[in-house]
């Protein structure tokens, strides 16, 4: 017991020290972690694909994949696929945001509206977006709008719920103050609730990008002839396993960058008022 206490005390000090360390310290750790991941990939892959009958999958190993990745970077076809995919994600999230922002603000603000819609939203949220796929294909003429619909329906629920949650956390004193100054509900929403919820709105967008990026690839399996999901399928059909693996890695990297960009916006704006009163 005593030694445990000692350990805790020592450990808590370690945390304090690591807080004071600079950016390079964090980046160093991140680089080590990444290197470890590649090592596991290399060792695991080498073992697995040295088994009899699996030799043909050698393309999945790090070195062929990295070579294919460099080929991919200079390939204009790949970049047009990236462009097509990001366009779909952006459009889908924009539609979800335009619908979800006012809905989230209103359900967070009016308790009765929240009670009225809460069950429906929770129910719809739990339906896997992929299960809308056949319906989307029946309803929409073009694959393009069907994919857009899938991304919208996948991202609108977290947007609504995160923003509504943010609204319910807005400092009550600010609301009372504005009411005392003569604000009506509309002014309250526009001048207090909306600016005070900006941190949560950014958070909801970050969640939405994460989900949209995951939904995108299976949605692009639908049969469309562009986008990252399509070129993965294409690489499988032509048995270019190194290219297939390189695309998988590229999807990860692009998603990581998209998430990082929003995180950077969140950090750079420094929304002090979450803790401030």
């Amino acid at each position, binding site marked *: 017991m005593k030694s445990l206490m000692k350990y805790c005390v020592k450990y808590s000090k370690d945390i304090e020290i690591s807080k004071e360390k600079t950016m390079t310290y964090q980046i160093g750790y991140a680089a080590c972690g990444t290197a470890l991941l590649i090592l596991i990939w290399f060792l695991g892959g080498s073992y697995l694909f040295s088994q009899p009958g699996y030799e043909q999958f050698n393309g999945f190993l790090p070195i062929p994949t990295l070579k294919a990745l460099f080929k991919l970077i200079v390939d204009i076809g790949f970049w047009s696929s990236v462009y097509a995919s990001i366009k779909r994600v952006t459009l889908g999230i924009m539609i979800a945001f335009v619908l979800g922002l006012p809905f989230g603000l209103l359900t967070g603000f009016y308790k009765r509206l929240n009670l009225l819609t809460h069950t429906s939203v929770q129910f719809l949220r739990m339906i896997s977006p992929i299960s809308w796929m056949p319906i989307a294909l029946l309803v929409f003429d073009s694959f393009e709008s069907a994919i857009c619909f899938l991304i919208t329906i996948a991202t609108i629920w977290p947007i609504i719920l995160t923003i509504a949650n943010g609204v319910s956390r807005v400092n009550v*004193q*600010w609301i*009372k*103050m504005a009411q005392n100054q*003569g604000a009506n509900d509309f002014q309250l929403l526009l001048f207090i609730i909306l600016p005070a919820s900006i941190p949560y709105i950014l958070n909801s967008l970050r969640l939405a990008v994460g989900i949209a990026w995951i939904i995108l690839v299976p949605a692009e399996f639908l049969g469309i002839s562009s986008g990252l999901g399509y070129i993965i399928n294409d690489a499988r059909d032509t048995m270019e396993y190194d290219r297939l693996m390189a695309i998988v890695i590229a999807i990860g990297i692009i998603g990581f960058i998209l998430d990082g960009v929003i995180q950077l916006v969140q950090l750079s704006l420094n929304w002090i008022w979450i803790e*401030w*009163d």
Partner: protein
Amino acid sequence: MTIHMKDVSKRYTLPKGKELLVLEGIDLEIRHGDFVIILGQSGCGKSTLLNLLAGFQFPSTGNILINNKPICGPDPSIAFLFQRPSLLPWLTVEENVAFGCKIRGDTHKLAYRVTQFIEMVGLSGFEKVHPPKLSVGMAYRVSLARALIGHPQIFLLDEPLVSLDTFMRNRLQEELINIWLSEYFTAIFVTHDIDEAVLLGTKVVVLGGRPSRIRGIFDIQLPYPRKPTDESFFHTRTSLLKELKASFIENHFI
């Protein structure tokens, strides 16, 4: 503006269907220009009384008339100063002061009035600063300017100075009295501090008990500015304490 409270009570419904009676049988008449102190222990319903006057809540029985009209919700002519400054951190000092006026569409010579009120609370030069960069005392001054720029008839203050240090508190008390003397509004100031009550009020209303009732109303006829070091201040304070004790014993409350 005169305030009439007639047999006002307030009960809250607690979870499990129980009810809590906070205020009972409050009869009070306040003339225009009074500086009324609501004095009482923590949790005796002082803030509830203020919330009723501000129109944030409504009495369970009885009624509150302001100029013979019942209160039907928050009204800009009844300004409220909260326990915390509650400034909007995304607006600058001058935008915070102008906030209410912009909401009400009261923009006549607004820039001039904002400058004037910022000067009055002694914050000239800080117009473009954002609230998180201000000290607590400065933030109070901003919220004071924001509350007063609309020239309210009634000014409700909910223990506004409790979180300040003694020096800052004394200075703000002095400034508050000066503003009150020049602006001529009715002030209703909630506190649990007897010194503060004697320093500021023309009338002290003592609340106490469960449910809370008015245990005594005392007039203080000292001229301003009052100084805690004066002998007259000391006498008034002592006699108020004695009367307080007497009225509490009378009500079987000690």
